[in-house]
């Protein structure tokens, strides 16, 4: 196994162009596990740790341009206001040591349905900035996940950053694991209220071959909130609406039975999380929630 160590972003792109099979590694919290388990033995590892700009972020008017290697710890500590859903998701990632190393670029690169960041990214809405020696492009998150552990990257492309919409309303994130910390997701759910557009977006993790949005549930809820004038009145969401939203979210899941949980439990849990997180965000939108997120 050869270890390529580009000193700059340009060198990294050149190396990836020359060795398209090279596996990029930054925090190593995913790639090293794969290697240790002997699940893959890439010919080349492309170490991105010397590319300092990947660890930088910029807060713009509409979006946060989050470098691919910005560690989860920093997202939790410094971007809670702009990216509350992702900050909550970051908090559920493994242990403090891993959160100091891993970043969103790794989750996107691996594109595992169990990646903790995906539901938050789907709910917030974002575009993935990818680049190669041929140039740069933005991939909408809805088009990014193409199959089990597959994404829309060309073989010579690297993930540079994610352009995530700054929160214009409350966001929430829940993850079920069979341990109270440091656990891989059995399933996860993200939700973001977008009062500016009067829409709600969602994300489901670990309950389908790829991270997905619960689109039917979103459409139902958007219509119901609109018709009922809920955005203006800020009244309590009718329980039947919340129930229907939860059932549709549950129905969006397409999970499997595995060692971490059964398919039927996953479907059930997605529904519970959908109902609860909708309640939390809506209470927050109404100004009644004491906090938009759990204290930790």
């Amino acid at each position, binding site marked *: 196994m050869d270890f390529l160590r580009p000193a700059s972003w340009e060198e990294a792109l050149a190396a990836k162009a020359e060795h398209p099979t090279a596996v990029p590694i930054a925090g190593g919290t995913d790639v090293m596990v794969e290697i240790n*388990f002997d699940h893959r033995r890439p010919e080349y590892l492309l170490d991105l740790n010397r590319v300092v700009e990947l660890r930088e972020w910029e807060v713009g008017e509409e979006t946060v341009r989050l470098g691919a290697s910005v560690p989860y710890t920093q997202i939790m500590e410094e971007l809670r206001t702009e990216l509350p859903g992702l900050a909550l998701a970051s908090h559920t990632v493994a242990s403090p040591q891993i959160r100091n190393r891993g970043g969103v670029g790794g989750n996107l690169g691996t594109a595992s349905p169990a990646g903790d960041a995906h539901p938050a990214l789907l709910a917030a809405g974002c575009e993935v900035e990818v680049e190669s020696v041929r140039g740069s492009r933005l991939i909408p998150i809805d088009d990014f996940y193409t199959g089990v552990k597959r994404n829309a990257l060309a073989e010579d492309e690297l993930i540079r950053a994610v352009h995530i919409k700054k929160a214009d309303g409350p966001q929430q994130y829940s*993850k079920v694991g*069979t341990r*109270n910390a440091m656990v891989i997701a059995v399933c996860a759910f993200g939700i973001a209220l977008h009062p500016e557009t009067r829409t709600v977006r969602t994300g489901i993790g670990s309950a389908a071959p790829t991270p997905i949005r619960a689109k039917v549930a979103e459409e139902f809820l958007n219509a119901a909130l609109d018709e009922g004038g809920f955005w203006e009145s800020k009244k309590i969401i009718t329980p039947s609406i919340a129930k229907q939203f939860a059932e549709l979210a549950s129905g969006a899941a397409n999970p499997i039975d595995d*060692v971490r*949980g059964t398919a*039927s439990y996953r479907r059930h849990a997605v529904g519970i999380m959908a109902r*609860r997180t909708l309640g939390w965000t809506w209470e927050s939108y109404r100004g009644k929630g004491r906090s938009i997120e759990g204290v930790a």
Partner: protein
Amino acid sequence: MGSTRTTGVPTKLTQGSKTKGGIGESTLRPDGTLKVTGEFAYSSDMWHEDMLWGQTLRSTVAHAEIVSIDVSKALAMDGVYAVMTYDDLPAEMKNYGLEIQDTPVLAHGKVRHHGEPVALVAADHPETARRAAAKIVVEYKELPLITDEASATAPDAVLVHEGRTDSHMSHVPHPNIVHRQPIIRGNAAEAAKKADVIVKGEYTFGMQDQAFLGPESGLAVPAEDGGVDLYVATQWLHSDLEQIAPVLGLPEEKVRMTLSGVGGAFGGREDISMQIHACLLALRTGKPVKIVYNRFESFFGHVHRHPAKLTYEHGATKDGKLTHMKCRIVLDGGAYASASPAVVGNASSLSVGPYVIDDVEIEAIALYTNNPPCGAMRGFGAVQACFAYEAQMDKLAAKLGMDPVELRQLNAMEQGTLLPTGQVVDSPAPVAEILRRVKSRPLPPERQWESSEGADVRQLPGGLSNTTHGEGVVRGVGYAVGIKNVGFSEGFDDYSTAKVRMEVINGEPVATVHTAMAEVGQGGVTVHAQIARTELGVNQVTIHPADTQVGSAGSSSASRQTYVTGGAVKNSCELVREKVLEIGRRKFGSYHPAWATAELLLEGGKVVTDGGEVLADLVDVLEDESVEIEAEWRHRPTEPFDLKTGQGNGHVQYSFAAHRAVVEVDTELGLVKVIELAVAQDVGKALNPLSVLGQIQGGTTQGLGVAVMEEIIVDPKTAKVKNPSFTDYLIPTILDTPTIPVDVLELADEHAPYGLRGIGEAPTLSSTPAVLAAIRNATGLELNKTPVRPEHLTGT
């Protein structure tokens, strides 16, 4: 120096407590800071110049004939020094085993479980060794799988081991049963007629792993005399030695073993792992060979706790007095015997729990199957039984409309109780009292997660995963109590050896304690120094590294080391003290009549009378003489259980703990947060109170683990392990570990050194059923299986 055999030395405390750092103080352990700061040298940290790395090739299927093994591609690789298979084993003896030598060093013609060692590679780099092992081609022809009792005892069942000649073969009903131990006392069928209520239950206990953090590792260095020096993390050096030397074709004195840094054990290091493999490769290549398992391999490299199916029936009169008990315990021993026979003995003899029941009908068996081998783990058979009989007690209480703690107290055993084996409990058994203590504690406040800033998710089920802010959360409270034997039972010659030397170094009296006790993290070395200070009145004690240059200390298991090796150290110190006093009498006896008439003590570096008068400095007594004694020490002997009736004085001592668990359950998502696990335990005498707390809290947490998350999952269709990693085999984190208030009782056992009671295992027993009881209390569900999964709580 002489070797003296003594039995049952009186254990009254003759030495005073004026010497600092003696027994009863919480002296700090020497390895504590090093372990917390990451500086402790574990066995995996060893290095030797010119060292090779060993790698094990393991079977990819659970039960198969080996048609062929082709090692040519591996041997041809640069950097590979040796490849070995069964055919390369040097001695006539090719098997090993704790009791039954049924485990091949390398598979011979057949593999019996997933992950069985088939071939070995030594190479100059661990990655080279790994790649070479991957190039070995093994052709398997798969055989039918034996995975449970039904398939093991079916009329046409394939035999996991053909041609058994072990001592249990003559009394087992089927060759796929390792051992069977019935216990019959009174007449359960007749007594059942007196019962006003009867409860029955079927319980399942999942396969728990010891999950010690330091994986199996060691270094074998070939010696000039044709022997080998082995540095290894293990639980019992001399037991390893007895199994290693014969398969190497060496006399035991040519295999010299030294204990290296052990990262936890919990029973998982009682069996051989890489010891023989490293020695074989070292002797074959003439070079030092190191083997370190990674976490994945570690799950295949040691035995696990026996999964069990337990069927119980209890009866009681309407006022709650137990009338009878019938039970059947089926333990899955997996492919090799390991400690299965002894686990059967424990499960059977302790299946009644800490209760008085005169009429019982008990049967425990262990199966041979193609599942992963199971053997020793903290609690050893008593854990599985406790899970079931405590669930039964709650069921019975519910049916009687009684308080579950009162029912237990009403039937609690006490000193003088006759056990189903016919043995009398002849030391304190404060079962009712420890239950009273955990029950009388104030309950933790409700809804602790509520704060002015919102819900503190760390206090809620799901924790940082932020799954509830209080929705669906219901509190439950549950109780359990257990009984565990201390020391090796059933007639085993359970001795230990201690060599103690006393001399003057740099003008100060110094004691050196040398035993073969494996310090696996229990704090034994700390306690040995405390005992030496108390018995010899010195401040300076040196603990010699554990090795095989001194007699056996027995195993660091069965809650026995402070009792047995502690007893041996105490005994040897007493013998050294007598010698020192003899020297004193010889030198100074004529100067003071007290040398002849008074009871003399060693305290603060001086010889003093029991009235406190100083007779001499130890420095002056010893001058340049040194006194050294190596002696074996034994607790009272035990007897085997009768193979038909189970009668016999099989155990030495018992250990009791009770728990109260308080849980919050998210009833919609099926997630659990254990809020508090209160413990009360009798320890006889706390030699090191801080270490006692550590053992009780650790055991409690390990019991919690198997209540709510820990399980090795074996696919019943392939007998392959599905979760051999810390990604999917979960152990409790600090956020899963509740407050553990501990109430320690010290009721002396007059038969034991200082009155102490072995403590390491009892808290592991009652922790699990207490958590289960609390979850049942919260949810109203029956929950007959542990660990509890979200699916069980949500019916999904």
